[in-house]
């Protein structure tokens, strides 16, 4: 007999779908089928069942091969590396639960490390803009039930957050949006056509790197001021029309992604987008929300912020928290040669950082904690495989709208495999011994 577990939380993207159903074998060890999840989420659940999955820590040898070591040895290596470093970098945190993040931060404080999460290459610029001009936001539930003007700016949820549109933003029939997609106007701004832009009622093909100009032009248009004939490749008539369309809604929302946070303008683009949202609130209700990627990158920001006051790139090396992306952010630290050891958890900088930063990781004492084999684990000196959060162990995660949701365990991890929390707990105890900090 198989059993079906309902209301499972999908640990893939920031949409954090909470309606997944998973059929597991009688002994509770195997995932047989996954229902309701998107293709990516489905794959993530099944990947936990992979036969070639590493189940013991692996230490890189001089010839580049890997030797299996015990968790005790892995704990010792990690603790020694962190305790002896002058400025260790502890990066990642976005695909693990808040409980593990909290323990990790305790280690960082004990050893004087820099703690950074994947926002550094993702929505970190959003956080900078939020600090500069604030953010009028809402929950995804409000969007489902109320929003009739949906703007996707520099993001492509059709591929990156596949169920976002059907659960919250375009298709669902909410309390005040009874006709589903027919009760909404969809505006897409993107330099290239995407599967999201195909659904758009109004599509603006903005010139690459001119998002800031277009956002500011919308603000200018809202104020009824003069505009040049063409801004960012868009004729001014269309900009005035777009401003009217946004104003005419009852409840609007701007969703934005990497297309504006990591292209020319970065935090200024978001700054302008938030200011546009603020301006629109003179006429109607408008909100803005970042399309967060990793399922718990929002949680990492939350935990860092309540523990140290800053959401990412927190430098604890002098014993107090300092925060200044550009100086304390991972890529800058690595490229400039400011750190002397790298601890990576629940993320894959090896696949996403510039090659010069990855080379730096490879040349330093380094530990990667990740259930998968990734480019990061392959350049790190030690790879510690752990259980999948949200599949083999529960724990808290934050959705992209800052709503905390407890993920669920559906199967047991392979025998003897530690969870992130268990591994970090053991490293913390050893680090405290080495540093002479009272437990």
């Amino acid at each position: 007999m198989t059993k079906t577990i309902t209301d499972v939380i999908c640990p893939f993207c920031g949409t954090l779908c909470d309606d997944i159903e998973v059929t597991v074998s009688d002994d509770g060890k195997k995932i047989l089928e996954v229902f309701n999840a998107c293709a990516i989420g489905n794959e993530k659940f099944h990947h936990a069942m992979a036969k070639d999955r590493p189940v013991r820590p692996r230490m890189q040898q001089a010839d580049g091969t890997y030797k299996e070591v015990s968790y005790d040895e892995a704990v010792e290596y990690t603790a020694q590396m962190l305790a002896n470093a002058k400025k260790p970098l502890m990066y990642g945190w976005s695909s693990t639960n808040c409980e593990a993040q909290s323990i990790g931060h305790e280690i960082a404080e004990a050893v004087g490390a820099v703690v950074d999460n994947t926002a550094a290459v993702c929505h970190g610029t959003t956080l900078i803009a939020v600090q500069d001009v604030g953010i009028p936001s809402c929950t995804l539930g409000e969007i489902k039930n109320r929003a009739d003007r949906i703007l996707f700016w520099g993001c492509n949820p059709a591929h990156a957050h596949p169920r976002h549109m059907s659960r919250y933003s375009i298709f669902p029939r909410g309390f005040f949006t009874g006709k589903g997609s027919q009760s909404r106007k969809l505006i897409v701004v993107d330099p290239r056509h995407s599967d999201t832009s195909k659904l758009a009622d109004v599509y603006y093909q903005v010139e690459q790197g001119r998002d800031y100009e277009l956002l500011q032009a919308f603000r200018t248009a809202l104020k009824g001021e003069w505009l040049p004939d063409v801004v960012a490749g868009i004729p001014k008539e269309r900009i005035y029309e777009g401003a009217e369309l946004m104003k005419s809604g009852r409840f609007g929302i701007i969703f934005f992604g990497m297309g504006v946070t990591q292209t020319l303008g970065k935090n200024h683009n978001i700054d302008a987008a938030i200011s546009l949202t603020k301006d629109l609130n003179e006429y109607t209700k408008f909100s803005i929300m970042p399309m967060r990627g990793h399922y718990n990158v929002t949680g990492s920001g939350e935990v860092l912020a309540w523990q140290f006051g800053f959401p990412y790139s927190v430098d604890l090396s002098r014993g107090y928290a300092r925060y200044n992306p550009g100086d304390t952010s991972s890529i800058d630290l690595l490229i400039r040669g400011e750190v002397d050891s790298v601890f990576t958890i629940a993320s894959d900088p090896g696949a996403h950082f510039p090659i010069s930063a990855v080379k730096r990781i490879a040349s330093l004492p380094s530990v990667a904690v990740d259930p998968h084999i990734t480019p990061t684990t392959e350049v790190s000196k030690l790879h510690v495989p752990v259980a999948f959060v949200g599949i083999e162990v529960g724990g808290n995660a934050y959705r992209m709208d800052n709503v905390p949701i407890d993920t669920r365990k559906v199967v047991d991890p392979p025998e003897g495999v530690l969870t992130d929390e268990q591994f970090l707990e053991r490293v913390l105890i050893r680090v405290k011994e080495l540093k002479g900090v009272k437990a």
Partner: protein
Amino acid sequence: MNTVTLTPKKQSDLYLEVNNITPDMFAGKSTEQIAALPVYVGNTEHPLGEFFTVTGAAGASAAETRIVIKGDSSRLKYIGMKMTAGEIEVEGSADQYVGGWMAGGKIHVQGNVQAFAGVGMRGGELLVDGNAGDYLGAAYRGDWRGMQGGKIYIKGNAGSDLGYFMNGGTIVVDGDVDVFVGTHAEGGTIIIKGNAKSKVGGQMVQGEIYVFGTIDVMLPGYIYRQELEKEVEGMKGKFALFEGDTAERHPKRKGQLQYAKLYLKQ
């Protein structure tokens, strides 16, 4: 004025945080006391004397103290941070935060400076013979008060985000600048003798920007007003005056909206 000379005797493996190298910290101290001041490498603390030979003598007050840093300073962060008086001469290039939050005195860097030079500067003078990095005379993260006063003079080029949230003071760049100039500024003067790329004066409320060269892409919120004669930094010329950023809020004075002014040399 008395001079203290710092000659490097060993390179640190990581960057050195030298926020104690200021005339304010050195004033009234003997060379031994100066050599005992702490500098920081990551989470470790070391005496300044471990990395530098200290010679000369400090003055009785900061205003009477001049510091000369010999050799390469490109791995020194926070030179002259929060200094209020006196002088610092850097013979090489310096790293980030040179003259950060400085309130008075003078810093002269013969080489280049990296990002965040003169962040939150309130007064004094910062002169750089080479190039400057990003966030020159800007606000520190999350702060809405950038440069408040004083003067920054860059003989080379400057990076992006120059004068971010600037409120007062003057920045002069002889060369070119990267994107975002004077974003969110509410005052102060920025003079660029070379070319600017784009996003000049975005969300700017008040203040003045002079560009002697070209701007690749103008922001939509700037309106041409008139052409006028001006004398700027000893150079006379015809300038086209643009006012903006019309997307942003602006205060009223005597019933008139007060805009930021962008002068483009003709």
